[in-house]
């Protein structure tokens, strides 16, 4: 069992929503906090732009858009992933090798020396950032459908991947083993717990499952409850990401538009109950991605209307 420290802190109900976070015209597909302190939010959206915004609400209400660069990390509908230097805004490396669009990108390895990309051509390519080789270090071809999500867990030296073929695969580099978990439904998000013992996988059947990485047993399943009165978690069509939050005590996930609009959900990991359902607005079709900033305790939700809402 995963030792999870249960915290009773509920995600803030008063969202510090940035009024002008509505910067990208297209839906936001990826959101992440900057590693140092989480003062910046990096968002990738469908308009092929990556926006770096200040996340911490300081004295001014309007966040300063620090830098807006043209496509960086995820460049969809093109068969290559581009890594851009964030400060200079120049492309530092460009790898070409995917025959279809790249769905997921993760840094991996010791000192981010490796970039792992999952693509709609059913492969996972592992690229070396330290050499100028144009070939990937390795190509993983086990998936039979689009590799939609990747998560790198450095503690166990493993790469978790989810594919639309309904399998979650964890490549353990150290052990030389691949564990395949059949989830029977297209996997839209995988996430390893911080201790590496559990795998959080979102599937299109409207559930987020927590699997034991040791033997593949189901530890808990989130979603599927008939909320009735308010928002209920829904995920049947769109790629919705889920993350651990609050030191693996809470599962955060976006959701599709339900009966009462889209919302972001939070579950208690152990109990499996919905702690909170945060509606993001009326006209938002879905909350496609969420990010948790451990250091500050903020979390951000990228929405399909192009807004990133940061809650403290």
């Amino acid at each position: 069992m995963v030792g999870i420290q249960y915290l009773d802190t509920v995600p803030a109900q008063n969202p510090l929503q940035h009024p002008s976070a509505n910067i990208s015209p297209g839906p936001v597909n990826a959101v992440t906090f900057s590693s140092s302190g989480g003062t910046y939010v990096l968002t990738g959206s469908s308009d092929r732009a990556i926006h770096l915004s200040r996340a911490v609400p300081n004295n001014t209400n309007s966040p300063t858009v620090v830098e807006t660069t043209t496509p960086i990390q995820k460049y969809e509908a093109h068969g290559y992933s581009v890594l851009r230097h964030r400060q200079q805004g120049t492309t530092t490396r460009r790898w070409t090798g995917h025959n279809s669009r790249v769905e997921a990108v993760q840094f991996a390895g010791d000192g981010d020396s490796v970039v792992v990309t999952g693509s709609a051509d059913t492969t996972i390519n592992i690229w070396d950032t330290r050499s100028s080789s144009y070939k990937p270090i390795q190509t993983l071809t086990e998936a039979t459908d689009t590799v939609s999500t990747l998560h790198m867990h450095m503690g166990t030296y493993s790469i978790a991947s989810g594919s639309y073929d309904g399998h979650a695969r964890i490549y353990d580099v150290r052990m030389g083993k691949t564990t395949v978990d059949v989830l029977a439904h297209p996997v839209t998000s995988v996430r390893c717990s911080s201790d590496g013992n559990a795998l959080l996988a979102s599937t299109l059947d409207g559930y987020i499952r927590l699997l034991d990485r040791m033997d593949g047993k189901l530890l808990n399943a989130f979603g599927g409850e008939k909320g009735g009165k308010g928002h209920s978690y829904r995920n049947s069509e769109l790629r919705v990401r889920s993350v651990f939050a609050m030191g693996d005590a809470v599962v955060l996930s976006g959701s599709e538009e339900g009966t009462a609009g889209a919302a972001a959900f939070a579950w208690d990991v152990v109990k499996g109950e919905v702690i909170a359902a945060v509606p993001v607005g009326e006209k938002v079709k879905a909350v496609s991605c969420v990010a948790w900033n451990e250091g500050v305790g903020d979390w951000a939700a990228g929405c399909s209307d192009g807004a990133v809402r940061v809650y403290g």
Partner: protein
Amino acid sequence: MALKRTRAALEADLQAEQSPYAFYGTPLPPLDDDVRDDGSFVPIWKQEVRDEHGSKRLHGAFTGGFSAGYFNSVGSKEGWTPSTFVSSRQNRAKKAEQKRPEDFMDANDLREQEESRQLQTADEFAGFGSTELDATRRAGLMDILKTGGETMGVKLLKKMGWSEGQGIGPKVRRKANLGESSAPGGDAEETYLFAPENPPMVAFIRKTDRKGLGFEGESRLESHNALQPTRDVDESDSFFGGRLAIQGKAQPPKPKESRRGGLGVGPLNDTGSDDEDPYSLGPQISYNKTIGGDKKKKKKLKPEPTIASANPLLNSKPVFISKKVAAARGAGGFRKCRDGRLPLDGFILADGIMGLSISEKKYDPPVIPEGWKPAKEILSEKRDQSKYVSTADAAKASTLNPTSRAALLGEDQLPGKSIFDYMTPEAREKIVKLTGNANLPPALGEKAPKGYELPESQKRKDLWDLVPKLDKQIAAQALARAVSGWMPYQEDEKKRARYQTFLQISAGTRSTLPERVEGSSTDEWVIEMQEFSRAAEVFKPMSGVMASRFTSSSTAPKIVSDAPDSAESGLSRPAEKPDDPAVAAAKIGMFGPMTRSTISFYPSRLLCKRFNVKPPENVQLDPGERPGAPSTEPGTRFQSAGFQAETGPKQLVSQDVMNQLLIDSLGYLPTADGLDPSASGPVNAPPPVVVEPERNDALEAERPGDAVFKAIFGSDDEDE
């Protein structure tokens, strides 16, 4: 006055006067200023011999002399030098120029050559001058215009063995004609091959007078009286002959032209011909004056030269038949053709026909006995010719049709009808269009007569035959695709339903006839079904290898960004396929060993290095050639896609175990402890083979007992 002049004075005087003997006119200038021309004595020491170029070239006794060669023509003092020929690989000798005879000629030779050349025509023209071609000159003015030489035809004939004066054709075997003077006896019987006689050409003589055709009286006179005396001259010079004959050769002597008596014909007008009888009186009629032997008797008596052609076919009876007999026989068969041959067998000369008609005895038809009456009466008088009607006209005029005719004749009514009676008007239109014949009988569209109707089952069978055959498998595939959500004719619900029915029928799941649109004809129905068949061929999913190469993303979840565009495509329903046990387990929430499988992963060494981990054992063991290692080549990744993943979960648990598990999970044995991952043996990575270089099992194993050796190599008893 000194009488004696000095020589110098004399010479000076001569030089001045130049030509002392020219008393009138202007003397020609001297040929040579230095030389006196008066024939006076010149001492030898003053004499010089020079050539035409003015150089002193005294060669010796005659014009040549012993040094002639060297000074005149040849290359060296010694005479002719042999020409040298040197050729090497680097320095190729040039091809010697073509030497002409002129190159070896000196001036004299060249001059002689010049003198010998004469300008002349290439061919002699017959009309001028020479008489050597007299034999061929008979055509007057024509000769001037044509060359007297041989024509090409003559040349060709000569090459073929013909010579002048001969006839053309195969050689003829006959006796030698030695002339009349030859002795009739002796070797007259011997025959030889002779060239055929030269037959005379037909001369077309232009008629310039107004006499009747064939009238020869005047010309006879002319030829006998006026022309005859000059005949020799005439023959020698045809230029004035007055007759333009086509042929340039001598006019053939008219062989049998009988001299008819005319005025003034007497012995003085003898033409030298022996055939003539100048003393014959009266008009010479063309009958034989002597019975049994006329003037030609001489010739005839001596046997007629046997015409024996080299061709045996022509070798026909050389029998003498007198003219009379020949006339009596009327055959004229022995008359020769113009080329001197007998007519072909079965043919007679046209001349002979005349005699035939005259002399042939004619037989009257048999006399009909009196009182004979023919048995049949002639009815032709009774028939009225004007009322004759041909059969075709009569048939046209008749208003009867076959049915009424049959009724008239009392025949049974045939059941058969015209095909048009059964045709629909549309079918008739089709035939009209095809044949272009609008005059077809009307289509009645009758039903088949009683007793000939098709049974219902037959009808249905015929309809079934109209249904296009579609491969069962293809139909099933197309149907499966339709189930999975895509199907043609989305815009037409009914048509889609019909398409589906058709597929079901083709796949064998339905046995009724395909539906048809209400009010449509069978043709339209068949056409639609054919269209369905084609559509099924086109829209059937990829099968086999191809299908496994591609993965469908139709069931893939959409990214948020895709949502606004493709919100409603309500057909995305995954195809129902037999569930993998693992998938089935996952669907009922039985996560655990059923859904878990482990396969080997061979991270590359570089990846391990980047991850800062020690490479796993399987990589360490055989880093170069890992069995089934995923290739790092981006281009090959599709090759293994779809194969590796399938091996994992499928072999994980068999169907039986799965069923067992399900039963267990339903209550009896809620725990699935019996199945730990280690039980699913085949999936687990094989234990790595450990090679220990320090140890060799084969050598260091314990020595087996003696019994083993005995069993293998035989018993000890044999050794004794």
